[in-house]
């Protein structure tokens, strides 16, 4: 039996403005808040290296030459050389993150399939 096509309501200009504003705020908040609160960015650690000479920083003669061409001294290069990523992590944190990603895709695919049935019914059952 032919299905009556769904007639969506017409959205007012004010409603469109509110939706646009909501999206703008959501985008800026969700993407910018982690940066603002300092939660974003790599977990870092600092190696305990003396900065008296290039050799102290583990740099050979060629490396030292290139650093100097770039305008660095052992003292100014110290932070760049001594800063390392900290890859230690907790298994629960990894599992929770994996769960969030998988659950997100599962829910979106499931809900989309429900909506897709209406789309196909309207398109092909007329």
């Amino acid at each position, binding site marked *: 039996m032919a299905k009556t096509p769904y007639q969506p309501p017409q959205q007012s200009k004010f409603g469109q403005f509110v939706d*646009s504003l909501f999206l703008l705020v959501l985008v800026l908040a969700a*993407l910018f808040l982690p940066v603002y609160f300092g939660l974003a960015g790599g977990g870092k650690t600092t190696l305990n290296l003396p900065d008296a000479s290039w050799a102290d920083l583990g740099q050979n003669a060629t490396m030292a030459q290139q650093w100097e061409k770039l305008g660095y001294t052992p003292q100014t290069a110290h932070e760049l050389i001594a800063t390392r990523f900290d890859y230690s992590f907790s298994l629960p944190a*990894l599992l929770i993150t994996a769960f969030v990603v998988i659950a*997100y895709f599962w829910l979106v695919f499931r809900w989309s399939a429900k909506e897709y049935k209406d*789309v196909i019914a309207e*398109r092909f059952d007329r």
Partner: protein
Amino acid sequence: MTQYTAVHGEKVSLLRVLGPGHVWALGVGIVLVGEYMGWNFAVGKGGALAALIACWAAGMLYTCVAMIDSEVTSTVAAAGGQYAQAKHIVGPLMAFNVGLFLVFAYTMLEAANAITLGYLVQTVGGMAGFADTHDKPFIVLTIMFLAFLNYRGVYATLTFNLVITAIAFVAILILFAAVSPWTDNVLKPHELLNGLPYGWLGVLAAMHFGMWYYLGIEGTTQAAEEVRSPARALPLGTMTGIITLLIAATMTWYICSGLMPWEYLGQAVTPLFDAARLTGSTPLMVLLFVGTIFSTLASANGCINDASRAWFSMGRDRYLPQVFGAVHPKYRTPFRSIVFLVPVALVFAYFAPLDQVITFSILSGLLEYTFMAFNVLMFRKMWPLGTIKRGYVHPFHPLPAFVLLALCATTYFAVFLGYGTQLVAMMVFYIIASVWFAGHRYKFVKRGAQFTMPWPRPVGH
């Protein structure tokens, strides 16, 4: 098929004026900047050798993306690219999410380009004796100028991209030849490479920024409604684009890792320009300065083009307020979408650090590629070969889809190593947006109008 604007019902459509060269320029133009900046953060995460392994592994990921995308896009040739694909194959909520993935991957990439351009102008200004040169005005000017260019018309915009992308690519070739890679006169890889400072975990971690070598190549599909022959131009432009990028990425790695200690390279903002500085040749420095500026402009330009098309498509389908579905009556561009996304790019370019902006872009891209793997599996099942006309059929199906899924899973883990908070923050954003769409926005969407391709009913529905 002609698509009309959603706002007043006037018969104004996007112009079909682009050829395969423009498609190549759109894809490579967006991505080539990845050789000029950003890829080298992979060196910081795992060392130079890890970055090379990540470069090739990410190359495989993007080869799968290009193969899959060429088939689906040459068949679903509608503005919005993967967004239109999701609408026809998976359903409205997925399409809404994919639209957002596209918009944020490109808008953040645009912001990253503006940051790099500003930094380079500041650096060169300092070298030329203008110590007070500030990067912020150049960041704002770049975004505003390119948004204006996009507002005025697609043909001039992408022709501009074709020229400056070609120049930026030739600059890498010239630098590669100039450092005589067949000798050790200039490059010293044996003395600068230091193995894997973080071990094999660093190789995994490097996949995070390894994606930056190629991120955005799938943007070729955004021009689907504006190319003269989608079935020919889209696969040709996309596949030649990925080949160009694989060559440029390998050359870039070889030049930079043979000239810089990995600790410097891993944090440099403009590594290819720094490589030119280290050769001591002024003409090369000028060339790579121009190349970096052009690559950032081409990329930002393509990003504005792609993000606004995706936003426009969602407005036209009422997934977003209808006002965004308007085409400019004179310039035939999605002008309101272009203008709306300017402040988002500006805020990020102005306030956020480069590596974090890049991470936001990469995460949106990663979510999109995960969708693409499932999408092509569903596409082949719902419309088996021979049931609809395809512009291109990718070989070895379903192997590319499974390889893509495996590499995406690896990259999620790579992002988790060091940037886990941002990963969760992004997921929270997409979950809130999905709830908003399903609970509020979807009531404005015309159900049957979501399926516009002249295909038979899908198998299983």
